[in-house]
């Protein structure tokens, strides 16, 4: 009934496909974290106008489907700017912008749960805010928010499969290609699912390692 040997000729392609998945996840995570950090600081700042725009941004990106955002960025960018955006750029851009919205909320919660006294102590020693936010507040905020942040990168990894719709040869696309050629859908997709599962478990491991590391000060 099952015949996994049909996959054999396609196995060399799998490594490349997994690599593409990882690449998307990696760059989007970086972008999501940077954007999320900046958004979190803006929403917490006293600047009402900036804070309003940041909140509006978060609302829009959390309130619309990621797939819609991806297609909008990929297909509408050439129409609006005459710049031919590559699938990698479109993918990283939409996933990064999208996850920035979620990460900013996780970080905002993390920052708010840092004791007010930590800010005051740093201020009272004459440390300028940009320094102690990075050295004192952010490490504690990340620690508080770590479970949600790990969760967010797991979401990103799985959501990266959406790039297959704009023709990127990622893990899901690899399976799709096989089933089109061999008509063996089960074998192809079950292997793709297994690959995602293994990658997610690796991220989980990384998460627990980081968790242990940030808990040394407890």
């Amino acid at each position: 009934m099952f015949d996994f040997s049909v996959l054999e000729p396609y196995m060399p392609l799998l490594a490349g496909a997994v690599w593409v998945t990882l690449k998307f996840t990696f760059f989007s995570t970086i972008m999501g974290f940077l954007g999320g950090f900046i958004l979190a600081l803006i929403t917490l700042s006293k600047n009402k106008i900036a804070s309003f725009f940041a909140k509006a941004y978060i609302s829009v990106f959390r309130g619309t489907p990621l797939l819609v955002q991806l297609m909008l960025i990929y297909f509408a960018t050439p129409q609006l700017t005459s710049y031919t955006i590559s699938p990698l750029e479109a993918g990283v851009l939409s996933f990064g912008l999208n996850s920035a919205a979620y990460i900013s909320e996780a970080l905002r919660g993390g920052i708010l749960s840092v004791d007010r006294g930590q800010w005051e102590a740093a201020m009272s020693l004459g440390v300028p805010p940009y320094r102690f936010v990075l050295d004192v507040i952010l490490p504690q905020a990340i620690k508080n928010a770590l479970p949600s942040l790990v969760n967010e990168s797991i979401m990103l990894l799985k959501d990266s499969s959406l790039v297959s719709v704009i023709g990127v040869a990622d893990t899901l696309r690899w399976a799709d290609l096989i089933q089109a050629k061999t008509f063996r859908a089960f074998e192809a997709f079950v292997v793709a699912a297994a690959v995602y599962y293994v990658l997610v478990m690796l991220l989980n491991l990384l998460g627990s390692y980081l968790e242990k590391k940030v808990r040394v000060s407890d």
Partner: protein
Amino acid sequence: MIEVRHLSKSFDGIPVLKDINLHIDKGEVVTIIGPSGSGKSTLLRCLNLLEKPDGGSIIFDGQDILHGKVKIEEIRKRACMVFQHFNLFRNMTVLQNVTYAPRVVNHLSKKEADEKAMQLLEKVGLSDKAQQYPSRLSGGQKQRVAIARALAMNPEVLLLDEPTSALDPEMVKEVLDVIRQLAGTGITMVLVTHEMGFAKDVSDVVHFMDGGVLIESAPPAEFFAQPKTERAKKFLASILT
């Protein structure tokens, strides 16, 4: 050293400081006492601008720090605060807590900052805890580290906001001993406290506040023996019985 003139501050329309005038000389040890909610901590926090007063002026070493262009960090590093709840940086070891501001603000090298910090930790009796995280220390130890952290900046003024109020009774003494030691070194200290015996012992001047008003200022011997105002008499009677 510090001259406070007509200082006022309110929170959400409720006045907590009303027309405060006081003068602190260089090297003086000053205690501020009074019932809870009398505004003494707020006054202390105004001195290094953790609270922004609504009116009046604070002249720090000849410079008006509320008006004109004053870099807030410049004032704070000269008047460091020790808090009721210690507020040690939780993500840093004891040594890192003490060296952080000197390295970032005063640009000391790691070696210089470490040496200085170890000296200070030695002084407060905690050099063996240098590599520990604050979570492993007792309240009294945390507060002694916090004092070392403030001293590491070589401040001209040390502000202490109820430094023993959050401590278990058996730890109060170790912190007071450290403060007592400092009182003889020529550093200017402003101390908000509920430890009357200690205030009597170490201070040059006692300021008594109630309801946001500075009611009476006098040397401790005079204040505790013969308070001039009715309110001070009442307050002393209530805490001494």
